[in-house]
């Protein structure tokens, strides 16, 4: 529950605070302590820290949600094709998924960004390309176990087409577990986005993001450690919370859930 409330609060903060708060790009006197105008003070260029945190939360959540939507769409399609399709197509799809799965994903993401460009769109594309194989594999194993159940055979005997079966009878069984997995995956995506931004090859300035805030704060970390602490803490709690929510959902939706899972 704590995880879920934090995620809801974070979304509200990201959506609402930029409407009321100071402009995150407006510069002023640097290193101001917290005050009525700047609730958390200002950074090395005199920009409002709380506003920048909110804008960073927007970017992170946006990238996380978009990437997971793409990953779910592609993953469900590939996973379904990997179980219900002609043998030759099934082999091609499954081998392709295996190959993508085995490839260290940060390398692929960096390769894509490296030869293409930096910025929000390349980051989304790179992370989408690397995050669907996990979903595809999960869908494939679940479908393979569901497709021989009695209720599926019954529906088939009643004259249901394969397409109708998949859409109406089999996939609806998976929404819960897929939601759980995408929460955990979204934590991974947000982490990857901030890693890339931290390294200076993700979201580019002046757009604020947690990763680049951490990177900027590095220069003044001995004199003004607070600048570094805020984005670090917020990012860590976000990843923590999303993992909690995902685990909670999994415990609820997965009957085979093993509490001792590593």
């Amino acid at each position, binding site marked *: 529950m704590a995880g879920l409330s934090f995620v809801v609060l974070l979304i509200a903060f990201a959506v609402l605070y930029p409407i009321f708060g100071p402009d995150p790009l407006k510069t002023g006197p640097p290193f101001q302590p917290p005050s009525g105008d700047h609730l958390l003070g200002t950074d090395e260029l005199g920009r409002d820290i709380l506003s920048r945190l909110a804008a960073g939360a927007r970017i992170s959540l946006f990238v996380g949600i978009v990437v997971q939507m793409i990953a779910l769409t592609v993953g469900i399609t590939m996973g379904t094709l990997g179980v219900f399709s002609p043998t030759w197509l099934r082999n091609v799809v499954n081998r392709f998924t295996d*190959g993508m799965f085995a490839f260290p994903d940060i*390398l692929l993401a960096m390769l894509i960004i*490296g*030869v293409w460009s930096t910025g929000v769109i390349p980051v989304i594309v790179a992370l989408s390309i690397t995050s669907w194989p996990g979903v595809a594999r999960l869908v494939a194993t679940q479908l393979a176990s569901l497709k021989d159940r009695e209720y599926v055979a019954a529906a088939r005997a009643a004259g249901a087409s394969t397409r109708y079966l998949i859409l109406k009878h089999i996939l609806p069984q998976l929404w819960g577990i897929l939601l759980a997995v995408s929460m955990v995956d979204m934590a991974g995506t947000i982490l990857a986005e901030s890693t890339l931004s931290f390294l200076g090859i993700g979201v580019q300035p002046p757009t604020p993001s947690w990763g680049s805030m*951490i990177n900027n704060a590095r220069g003044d970390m001995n004199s003004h450690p607070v600048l570094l602490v805020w984005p670090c803490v917020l990012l*860590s709690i976000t990843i923590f919370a999303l993992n909690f929510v995902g685990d909670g959902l999994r415990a609820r939706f997965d009957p085979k859930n093993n509490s*001792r899972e590593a």
Partner: protein
Amino acid sequence: MRLAKAILLRLLFGVVSLIFITFVAFIADELAPGDAATVRAGEKATLAQIERLRRDMGLDRPWHVRYVETLGKMSRGDFGESYLGIREPVIDIIKRNLPMTMRLAMVAILLAVTIGLTLGTLAAIYENRGADRAVLTLSTFGVTVPAFVLGPLLAILFNNYLNDYIYGSFGVYVADSWSTNRKQADWLYLILPVVVLSARPAAMLTRLTRASMIETMQQEFIRTAIAKGVPFRRLVIKHALRNAILPVVTATGTSFGFLLTGSFVTESFFLLPGLGRETIEAIKQTNAPVVQGCIIVTGLMFLAINLIVDLLLPALDPRIREAQV
């Protein structure tokens, strides 16, 4: 004979993965805007000049011909040359940066395995008691706190509070950066980077060891060993751990992937002259040949480690060995 066949198949799979990596790297470069001819021609070149240069460099031939040619060159250690500066061959850049990355990765993985096995076993023995809870909490932090958060936080901690204390006790500044203040032996600069780098793999291996040990400790043969009166230390190390260690060995290979990710961050943050930092610099300067070369070599390291791990498994586990003979 079956074992030899399995090993051969595994080697074949390694080769296929390698080709896959080079292919992806090649295609990515192919789809990207701009090519070697545009860069070499310089900014003032006309379209006709670029076109001529492209023909001279053989870039107008179909992609599969050039891919095979690139593969041939790579196998001879020719990864092209940097777009920038003195056009240094990429292989020289890699040779200069690889030792640091290797050293970091090897020390970090050793540390991670040591911590993982020790803490994981301890947690399993004290399941659901204080020590177990402490280890679980610690490992949750290790998994969720990213390297680029841990690095700065440790650096602040050491620079502002702990360094003088440690310097007083051991004569060592722990959080000193590589490039600025080289008064100490090389390895001393690596303490914090190695700790940061190994945190995540160590935490994952700890959790895995714990889960695997708990499962093993519940099995019949352990009960038999207890009934026979095997001393506890021997029971844990010789009987349980030897069985529980197999999934951990496999995971060590995969966690090497996290180590590579971590090395990009750690080397950039601590300013260490390694392959990870070089890759990031090259990406920032859109220096495609260097990006390509570095990523292929990094991928190669990942493949090699996983190959070694997979070949090691039959040696460790007689069940796998005999199933395949």
